[in-house]
């Protein structure tokens, strides 16, 4: 059971990105399920993903990074699905990426040996909104920087909404916070993800827990 966490601020394109990943995995006959979180009291993203015919566990009413019990129950529920290959986790857009990563790294130590043997934290995917980058860096810089620092792959999304010069400036800034071996790609998730980027997300296999 390979796990991908997709962290990014509200409206950065997380749901669109995971929908693209889901389409690719489904086309490859891989079984994928989702754990979708929102701070609101109604679930919208979960319904959108479920409309695509996918298995979804929804956790709402709070940020997943503060709901360890619910997260672990959700992961255990998904681990019970026979033949499950991938779990894609979308925390709320207000999530602290560092806290999310710690929770996901700790999970196998607190789960059953059978689940722990199958569990693999495959990729930490961070999504940054190129169109609103300057505004978000004024308002919530900690969340943006943390999501970049923790990521194995950073997607600078909505690349079509920013000028090439601005995109380059943003990439330079993000590069200062990224992990040495992390990858940075400019995307427009609403137009679909290029196969190379998908393979980078799915193929990052350096994080055995």
């Amino acid at each position: 059971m390979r796990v991908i966490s997709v962290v990014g601020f509200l409206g950065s394109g997380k749901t669109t990105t995971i929908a693209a990943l889901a389409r690719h995995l489904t086309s490859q006959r891989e079984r994928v399920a989702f754990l979708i979180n929102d701070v609101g009291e109604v679930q919208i993203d979960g319904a959108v993903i479920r409309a695509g015919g996918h298995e979804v566990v929804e956790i709402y009413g709070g940020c997943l990074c503060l709901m360890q019990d619910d997260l672990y129950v959700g992961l255990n529920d998904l681990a019970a699905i026979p033949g499950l290959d991938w779990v894609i986790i979308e925390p709320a857009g207000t999530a602290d990426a560092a806290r999310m990563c710690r929770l996901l790294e700790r999970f196998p130590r607190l789960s059953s040996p059978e689940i722990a043997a199958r569990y693999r934290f495959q990729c930490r995917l961070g999504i940054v909104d190129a169109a609103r980058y300057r505004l978000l860096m004024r308002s919530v810089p900690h969340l943006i920087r943390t999501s970049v620092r923790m990521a194995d792959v950073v997607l600078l999304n909505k690349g079509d909404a920013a000028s090439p010069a601005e995109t380059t400036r943003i990439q330079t800034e993000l590069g200062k916070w990224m992990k040495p071996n992390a990858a940075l790609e400019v995307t427009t998730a609403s137009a679909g993800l290029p196969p190379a980027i998908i393979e980078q997300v799915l193929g990052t296999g350096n994080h055995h827990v």
Partner: protein
Amino acid sequence: MFSALSRHVTFEGPVEQTAHVLQAILQGVIVELGGELVGHAKVIARTPLGVFYASTTGDRAPVHVNADGQPDPSVSTVAIDFNCVFHGLKRRRLATAWEHTAETLRQRGYRLVETPVLPSARVRGRGSRVNVGLGASMAASLVALKPCCVLPVLASVSGGGLGVLQFLQPLEPYRPYFLILTLMLLAIAFHRIYMRPQDETSDELEASVRRTKTVFLLSAVLFLGAVALPPLLPAQTHEHAPNGQHSHG
């Protein structure tokens, strides 16, 4: 500080108007909120055979409604869920924006009926900051009320009428320490409640924050009263008679 608002409505009308209703909801709320928004608003309409959904971050791009599946044209009632989360806005402002938007749509002839959103059972771990503030306020109240000042003073003023409180008199010499402890508890409560604002993401949490603030303010008033009261009372002196007897002046 983030605030979230969720609403559930039913739209009664032709399903082909659903996309327009969703666009109007999102654009209406964004316009009502105004300014530079940090967050997003989302809306989804569920029909038996498909869903319409849309989201906006408040920028000027037109809201595009996506549809999955083939909504049944014979359906005349559609369930709509709305959710918005914004940074730096009070929840009451989100609620007002929603109410104005819904009213505007009704005035345009759209039949929108609001139904209650069931309280989320999964609000965990997020109340800790509120609970610390509440706990500190209540502890401050107890310390101020019991040994610190108020009850012993009432015992003195009552002239023994509240005899049961006389047992607190021996604590009177320790009054300064209790005052300092109470002040520290109130400072902790103040920091937790006002310096580290709680996200407002549900009616329950908003009510919980209001209750915590009420308890804190009552505790603070009690403390101030306890500090101010003794100096305002007539001084009671103890005179020692030559033969060792005490008399009260």
